């Protein structure tokens, strides 16, 4: 577990260059002795992770059964703490695991809880301290923010390859650290060397795959009658070992190079071919020949993701007990003995002798041949949650566990290459190439004359993580652990450094020191105390209580690079004795550097700077009623202390919030959210030690002026359906404040006319013949408005005269075009004249004839104007 934390931190610090941490500290160091310190922004806010002892865990579980660990925190005795911190929730980090719950509890994972609380109640460091001080709490730490390590390579799907780097962010079923910890190896040691050849005894590798081609070496088919053909299983395995890295496409391979330098070479020893008649069953070939051919053609690592089939479990058990025999056994022995050697036994490859790595098998049985053959490295499969994959064979014969995935949940499988693309697979077949890939990296870096297969195995297995023995598939593969395995030499001590007080912090700068067996220091511990004697013969694994410490991880810095760190939260204006010690991945500590004396300084209050054009302290900012003004405020603390900001807005118009993108605090003044008048907003910044500063910002919200009509809109005539016109409303309505107005449009007949407002322009479209009344109401942000009304007539040019409605029940409208004296005669069906009048008539002033006194029936209307006479039939109902 400890190495897991270290690996994550190393990745983070690779980018941050410098950060403060205690994850790298020795396990023995107690929480009281080394409180977590550092800038809060590097932690997730409002959440800490806590581990309880068995007794307290039982009480908390009782509370949970009673209805909630927070609301019913009676038996656990944590209620007061919950109340004071505003605890929102407390849940197990590793949820109830069903049939795996017993072994989950056996591993102590049930005692881990994630506590979410109200962030304003306390900083995460203080919250962690509050928990750490309670009896029964074994561990209480803030949660560091995770950063993707993918920046090291540009392969777009790397973030899905949790099996290489798992920060727990893919889903709730991905646990941080459940990976092979290969990123620090890429950063500090190697990404693969083409001198190393890995023979993939499997289905054929897709040699033309875009993400494999550059690292493909050669191949040979051991299936009679077939050449090397691209096979899904074989290509997936090969991609895990050496898919090309940093090429901007697809996925990463463990030993796939860095884009500039090639990775290890892939040798395809084909023993499976897809059966064209039954694609679900492959055609098999000679595995023993394939293994031996690898040794005779330069491979030093034999990757084997295959095993034997048995009819029954009893058969498998019997075979397991009898052990491996036959040509495969001899071929394996041959590979181990002769790989890397010429016909005379001289080492010609990067390693003398070979390693044969086998998948343990996917039968969920404690047997598995050939993997259980003792000379080979048997690989079991782990999920993204630090659990044995449900299919994985297991037992003491399994040498090492690696991620093989579980495709029963999203992104739970292993992502790698398949012919023509990429896919998620699961199986010990997928776990096995992780070990082969790491083995290839080790040979790439350590290989050379004299480097033997036994040395490789020792590093590979010795560097693995042992804390997950309950999985019964061996220790968990740890690439960085393998590279640093066996290191007993502490890094060189820091010989010189600078130390400077910044308020109650001390900034220290030094250079990265080398490590004879690990190349460079893994991290540094910075210590400070007011008692000089506490630093004499200091035991870094058990720091005295009066010593304050911070850790700084080296990440991807190199020996000689400048590195810096800060010890925070010291007492003000006190004299401290400070020093630095280096440590490696195996927690070998150097001597403490020379001790220097630094006096901390007094506290300075934060500073507030309003960064708004034209703003001068004491001036009054004038805000128009419709305006929304953003005023960036820079709040800084020269001492680097955390700062809280309090805003007294003065009116409802002012809101304040931090802007993460700019790092500023932004005041937003919304003019129409308060009545016109003059107000004062007061911004107060207070650092974590109580020093405060305030800034008054005066602002005036100006009175609103309603929009006014400049000119009336005249009635309009459209002469065809589909005709469009646009009206610039700024020619008709003006807002004295210069505000953009909102236009509400009422159309009496939407089948006739459509109006689409766009800014200040109304786009009108004639939809059908007819007329419609239009009312446009222009409103400002305070809903003061003015209204324009006009009529629109869409007139059929072929119809110079329109009588409507027809049939008529009361009034008949007679509409012509241009205004003219018009004679209208209405005659009954029998010819009787019932109406005869002459009056001006136009399109927008139709004659209105009262037909209410006319009996139901048919009538003729004769309309005469402009020298023309028109006759129409109408009906009165």
């Amino acid at each position: 577990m400890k190495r897991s934390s270290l690996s994550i931190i190393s990745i983070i610090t690779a980018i941050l260059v410098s950060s403060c941490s205690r994850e790298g500290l020795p396990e023995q160091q107690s929480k009281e002795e080394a409180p977590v310190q550092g800038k809060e922004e590097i932690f997730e806010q409002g959440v800490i992770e806590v581990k309880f002892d068995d007794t307290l865990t039982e009480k908390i579980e009782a509370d949970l059964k009673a209805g909630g660990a927070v609301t019913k925190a009676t038996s656990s005795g944590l209620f007061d703490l919950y109340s004071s911190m505003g605890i929102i929730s407390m849940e197990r980090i590793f949820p109830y695991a069903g049939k795996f719950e017993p072994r989950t509890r056996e591993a102590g994972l049930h005692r881990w809880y994630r506590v979410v609380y109200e962030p304003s109640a306390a900083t995460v460091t203080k919250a962690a301290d509050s928990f750490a001080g309670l009896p029964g709490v074994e561990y209480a730490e803030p949660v560091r923010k995770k950063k993707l390590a993918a920046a090291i390579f540009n392969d777009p799907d790397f973030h899905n390859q949790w099996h290489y780097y798992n920060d727990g962010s893919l889903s709730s079923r991905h646990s941080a650290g459940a990976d092979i910890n290969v990123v620090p190896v890429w950063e500090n040691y190697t990404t693969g060397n083409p001198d190393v050849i890995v023979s993939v005894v499997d289905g054929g590798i897709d040699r033309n795959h875009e993400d494999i081609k550059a690292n493909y070496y050669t191949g040979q088919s051991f299936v009679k009658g077939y050449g090397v053909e691209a096979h899904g299983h074989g290509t997936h395995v090969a991609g895990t070992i050496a898919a090309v890295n940093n090429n901007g496409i697809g996925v990463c391979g463990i030993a796939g190079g860095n884009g500039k330098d090639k990775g290890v070479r892939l040798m395809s020893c084909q023993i499976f071919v897809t059966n064209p008649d039954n694609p679900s069953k492959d055609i098999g070939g000679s595995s023993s020949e394939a293994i031996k051919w690898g040794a005779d053609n330069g491979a030093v690592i034999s990757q084997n993701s295959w095993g034997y089939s048995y009819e029954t479990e009893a058969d498998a058990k019997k075979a397991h007990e009898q052990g491996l025999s036959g040509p495969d056994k001899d071929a394996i022995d041959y590979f181990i003995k002769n790989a890397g050697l010429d016909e005379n036994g001289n080492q010609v490859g990067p390693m003398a002798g070979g390693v044969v790595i086998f998948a343990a098998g996917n039968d969920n049985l404690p047997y598995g041949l050939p993997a259980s053959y003792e000379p080979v490295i048997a690989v079991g499969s782990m999920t993204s949650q630090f659990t044995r994959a449900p299919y994985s064979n297991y037992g003491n014969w399994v040498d090492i566990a690696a991620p093989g995935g579980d495709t029963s949940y999203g992104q739970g499988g292993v992502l790698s290459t398949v012919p023509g693309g990429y896919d998620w697979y699961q199986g010990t077949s997928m776990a096995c190439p992780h070990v082969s890939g790491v083995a290839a990296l080790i040979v790439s870096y350590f290989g050379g004359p004299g480097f033997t297969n036994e040395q490789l195995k020792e590093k590979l297995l010795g560097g693995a993580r042992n804390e997950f023995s309950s999985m019964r598939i061996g220790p968990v593969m740890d690439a960085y652990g393998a590279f640093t395995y066996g290191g007993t030499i502490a890094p060189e001590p820091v010989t010189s450094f600078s130390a400077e007080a910044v308020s109650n912090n001390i900034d220290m700068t030094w250079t990265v020191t080398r490590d004879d067996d690990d190349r460079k220091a893994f991290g540094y511990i910075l210590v400070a105390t007011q008692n000089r004697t506490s630093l004499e013969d200091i035991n870094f694994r058990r720091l005295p209580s009066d010593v304050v410490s911070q850790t700084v991880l080296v990440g991807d810095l190199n020996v000689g690079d400048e590195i810096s760190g800060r010890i925070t939260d010291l007492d003000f204006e006190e004299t401290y004795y400070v020093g630095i010690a280096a440590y490696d991945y195996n927690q070998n500590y150097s001597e403490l550097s020379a001790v220097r004396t630094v006096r901390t300084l007094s506290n300075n209050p934060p500073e507030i700077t309003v960064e708004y054009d034209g703003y001068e302290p004491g001036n009054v900012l004038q805000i128009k009623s419709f305006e929304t003004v953003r005023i960036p405020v820079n709040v800084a603390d020269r001492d680097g202390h955390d700062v809280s900001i309090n805003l007294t807005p003065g009116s409802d118009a002012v809101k304040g919030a931090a802007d993460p993108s700019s790092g500023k605090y932004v005041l937003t003044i919304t003019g129409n959210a308060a009545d016109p008048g003059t107000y004062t907003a007061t911004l107060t910044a207070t650092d974590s030690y109580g020093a405060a500063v305030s800034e008054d910002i005066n602002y005036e919200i100006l009175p609103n002026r309603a929009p006014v009509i400049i000119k009336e809109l005249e009635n309009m005539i459209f002469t065809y359906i589909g005709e469009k016109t646009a009206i610039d409303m700024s020619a008709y309505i003006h807002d004295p404040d210069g505000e953009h107005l909102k236009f509400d449009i009422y159309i009496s007949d939407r089948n006739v006319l459509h109006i689409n407002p766009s800014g200040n322009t109304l786009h009108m479209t004639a939809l059908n013949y007819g007329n419609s009344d239009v009312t446009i109401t222009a409103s400002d942000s305070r809903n003061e408005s003015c209204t324009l009304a006009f009529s629109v007539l869409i007139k059929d040019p072929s119809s110079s005269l329109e009588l409507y409605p027809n049939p008529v029940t009361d009034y008949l409208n007679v509409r012509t075009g241009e205004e003219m004296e018009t004679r209208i005669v209405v005659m009954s069906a029998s010819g009787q004249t019932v109406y005869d009048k002459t009056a001006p008539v136009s399109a927008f002033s139709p004659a209105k004839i009262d037909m209410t006194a006319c009996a139901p029936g048919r009538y003729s209307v004769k309309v005469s104007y402009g020298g023309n006479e028109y006759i129409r039939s109408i009906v009165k109902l």
Partner: protein
Amino acid sequence: MKRDIVRVFISVVCAGFMFPAAVSAAPGSEAMPFARIARDPVSAAMGGTGVVSTSASAYASFRNAAAIPYAKNTLDVAAAYMNWQPSVSPVQDISAGAAWNIAGKFGIAAGFSYGACEKYDIMDASGKAAGSFSPSQVQAGLGLAWKFLPFLSLGANVKYLGNTLAEGQSYGAVASDVFLMTKVAGLKAAVGVSSLGSKVKSASGAGFSLPASATLGLGYGLKAGKRHGVDILVDADYYFSGAFAAAVGASYTYNDLVSVRAGYRYGGESVIPSFASVGAGVKFFGVHIDVAYIIATGGSPLRNTFSVGAGFSF
């Protein structure tokens, strides 16, 4: 009893004449005005007269059934086509009628007409076209007559008037004509009420009366030798709406074979405007063919109206 009939009839007619004094309707306020159109070409050619016509009795059910017992023939059957107001709002009207003179004592008549009107454009309240519709008008009637005195007959018609104006919008009414008629030598006279009937309700619920009137008809037939005959008819209507109309028509017949006709109607404020008309007819072995043409001034909607018909009588 015969005296009672005459007494009742006179009361009804007098009431008809008295009624308009109390009620004065605006033009167009009378429903189903097409009921007053003279459809048969003989009447149309003579200014629309025919209340006392005894030579063209087939259409008696449209005006005066009391004339049937005085008819020259036992049975008269006729049909006609009329294009009404062709230059304004054409109506293609077909009509048919028959009258049976039973021994000069009784009479039975029946008639039917159907008019297909010009299609009009349906417009909604905003002036948007919404289709079209062709209205229609129909009339069906039955008449009975009884010559209860050697010189006096009583006749009555009952008619159904229908007018379909729009989809789902049809109107109907029942009307009657009641007349008392006498003939002494060549002089004929009739008095009665025409188109007296139920009201028609508009969509808004207002009631509208039929174009009823008190009607007086006079006629005189003159024979000049065996070959020449002249008939002169006069109709006068005093509408209950207050309007007055009168018409005069004359017919000359040669050898009982060929007829020419002319007439004039003064419409006043009545439902049928003024017009002059001419017409002609031939008759051969009981079969007669007649035509009529209405001569109207330029502004009259009736101009160019014509009617053509055929019939058989014996």
